[in-house]
């Protein structure tokens, strides 16, 4: 019975995942895939989306006074390169 219950939950979980993916693909059929340009031309926004969103939702606003410190902290956490740190700083505190 326990094995059956767990299998049923596994099936439900898989269905939930599949429905979520399919549903959103249907909602945005025409949305173009963003193609990452070479690293040299990578924008701060792309660096933000590629790294910060891996773990958490983005803050709506960061005080310009602390943006540099936040990005320094994120560089150590997300293991960003110095170039990415600088582009991110320009993006968040232009």
């Amino acid at each position, binding site marked *: 019975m326990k094995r059956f219950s767990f299998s049923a939950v596994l099936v439900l979980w898989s269905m939930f995942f599949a429905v979520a993916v399919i549903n959103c693909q249907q909602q945005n059929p025409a949305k173009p895939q963003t193609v*990452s340009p070479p690293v040299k031309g*990578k924008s701060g926004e792309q660096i933000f989306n590629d790294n910060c969103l891996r773990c958490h939702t983005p803050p709506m606003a960061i005080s310009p006074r602390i943006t540099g410190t936040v990005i320094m902290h994120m560089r150590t956490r997300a*293991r960003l390169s110095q*170039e990415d740190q600088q582009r991110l700083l320009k993006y968040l505190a232009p």
Partner: protein
Amino acid sequence: MIAGGAAYVYNVNGGVPTQLPQINPVLLVPFGSHFLLESRTSFTGFFQRENQTSGPYKGKVFKSVDYAQVDWLLDSHLIFSAGKYILPFGIYNERLVPVWIRNLQDSPITAAIGTRNSGAGDGFMFRGVAVQSPRYSVQYTAYFSARSDINQLEAARTAGGDTSIYFTQPRLEVGVSYQRFLQQRNINSVATYISWQPRTTPLDLKAEGDFSYNGRGYWIESAYRFQQLPVPQFARRIQTVARMQQFFPLHGGGNSLPTVDNHRVDFGLNYYIRDDIRLVSSYGRSFSSQGNANVWNVGATYRFLFPLWPGRHK
């Protein structure tokens, strides 16, 4: 500056209610452009009824320094950290533990693997990005921790590392962690993990498998936000979460791991009032030969971020 998170969670595990308020301030002090002092302290309350299910709530607040380290941003590809640091084992301990980040408030069963004894190490760590190209980047971490029994600085003698490759276009990360526990019995622990956030869908999929002397297990978690669905604006702030996990003890389990096979499923429903304030709820069912149990969580989380000193007037 001060950053961090705060939360209040009301938990019912097997019919026993617990109130878990907590606040985790992170202190960040930069020294020039190459040095950063960072530290996180946790104040966690644990309040249960006197007779578990009846009587007044009683408990205490636990204080702990989760980490306190100095980072030296040496080079574009190299960061040196020294002090008490979070053990970079798997994807959970270092990245998903903060209350405002985690999608489900209960930690995975395997979170105890590779994080003995306190989740942190005392010593030094090298980390950074080894290779970066338009299509992928490779990140690395290597560390050594000395044994310490000093209050608030407890750590085990360990050495290990982590490396992951991140594919830019599909936003897919695959990584592996290794740790050798170097006191009492020498133990090897390995974790493999995957993280995927597709570009076209607000889906967050994470999974981790852990292997150690005391047991092996895995967890898979998916979180989906309604922001693209054709629903009223208020409903687009909803996030659904599902996680399943299994754990199988080896050599009797122990060391904060279950001693019998354990299976667990959790379903969560979160609501983002703002990007920094979130209502959280979840229901889980735990299956083991020691008894099955329902686990409920209801609460709220808050992320804060503000300067340490008042701004100058111009």
